[in-house]
């Protein structure tokens, strides 16, 4: 048996386990997802920044007021992204639209996070993957979660988990949120944030995060 035959044998398996959930059930579940999504959008807008602030495009946390996202109501608009420092020293980044990466980068750096942000498939070429114990910890996968946590030894994973932590219940991909723990970043390392897929509109991008070596050309310091 050669590699081609092995591949054929592997591929033959994929049709042997049927997905038995009826499409009607999927759609019903989809409606629930859609309903869940609407509530936090409006709640976040009204709770975090206040109704007046949202309507005026002014926010308490650092936001990108130029871009906006129309929520379920006709007059409520959310910023494309929000950066909010938490009481525990962590920084919560919420990305709704992949616009104004320079503004997000500037805001995060001002908050003490060495970071490079590009909202395209083309990552900053000046950035080098960290050679620290975490290795190439890419994988803040589409719409929000570390994807290669299983690849790392336990220590690295704990470290990773501390460095990036996805907010509970923020899985909704139109409500991406990333919680950065600056104090947990390994010395000399920073973050690289980028997207794949179409930039701009919500739902059309995937957000990734990697640990990189901090440098003036990559992370600004």
């Amino acid at each position, binding site marked *: 048996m050669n590699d081609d035959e092995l591949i054929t044998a592997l591929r033959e398996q994929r049709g042997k386990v049927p997905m038995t959930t009826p499409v009607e059930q999927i759609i019903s579940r989809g409606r629930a997802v859609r309903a869940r999504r609407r509530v936090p959008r409006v709640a976040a807008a009204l709770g975090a920044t206040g109704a007046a602030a949202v309507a005026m495009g002014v926010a308490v946390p650092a936001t990108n007021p130029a871009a906006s996202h129309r929520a379920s109501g006709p007059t409520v608009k959310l910023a494309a992204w929000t950066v909010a420092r938490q009481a525990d020293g962590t920084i919560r980044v919420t990305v709704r639209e992949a616009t104004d990466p320079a503004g997000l980068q500037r805001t995060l750096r001002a908050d003490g996070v060495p970071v490079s942000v590009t909202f395209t498939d083309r990552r900053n070429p000046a950035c080098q993957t960290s050679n620290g114990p975490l290795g*190439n910890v890419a994988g803040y996968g589409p719409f929000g979660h570390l994807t290669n946590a299983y690849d790392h030894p336990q220590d690295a994973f704990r470290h990773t988990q501390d460095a990036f932590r996805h907010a509970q219940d923020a899985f909704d991909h139109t409500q991406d949120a990333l919680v950065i723990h600056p104090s947990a970043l390994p010395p000399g390392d920073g973050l690289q944030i980028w997207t794949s897929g179409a930039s701009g509109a919500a739902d059309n991008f995937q957000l990734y995060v990697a640990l990189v070596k901090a440098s003036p050309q990559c992370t600004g310091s």
Partner: protein
Amino acid sequence: MGAQRPDFAEFYRETKDECLFAVMVSVGDRDTAQDLVAEAFARAWASWPAVSRHPAPAAWVVRTALNAGVSRWRRRRREVPVADLALVADRPAAREPAGDCVDPRIMAALLQLPARQRQVIALRLFLDLDTERTAQVLGIAPGTVQAHLGRAMAALRNGLIPTLQEENQS
């Protein structure tokens, strides 16, 4: 007028089995995979205007399902159990006619691979994504995809081919 987007029900019918298998190989358990894939398809339905324009919607579903799995794991703070072979065989697949069941030796060999290698195998071989797209979906470099695929194939070759050849000879 742009190209017509595929109907969700048609997309579901055509891709659900391969998505399930890809996720099952990654998480190691059919019931868990089925629930994760159902959730991912539900999210795809909720965002269908955008997802249908994705270059590889099935990959979007698989990636979303895997993310949901990681999220659950985080919440529970315990490892997603990688079922042993008996568990996989005894779950609903076992109710299917024997000839339609996954080859237990192949499943066992796949489950012995590291998680990332299983994900690469799932996307490259079971979803037929190319290296570039696989790299994008997993957020890793194309060269890393190639390396994982090479190691996975070598491991499968070493672990599987002697067994299959032995069976063919007997």
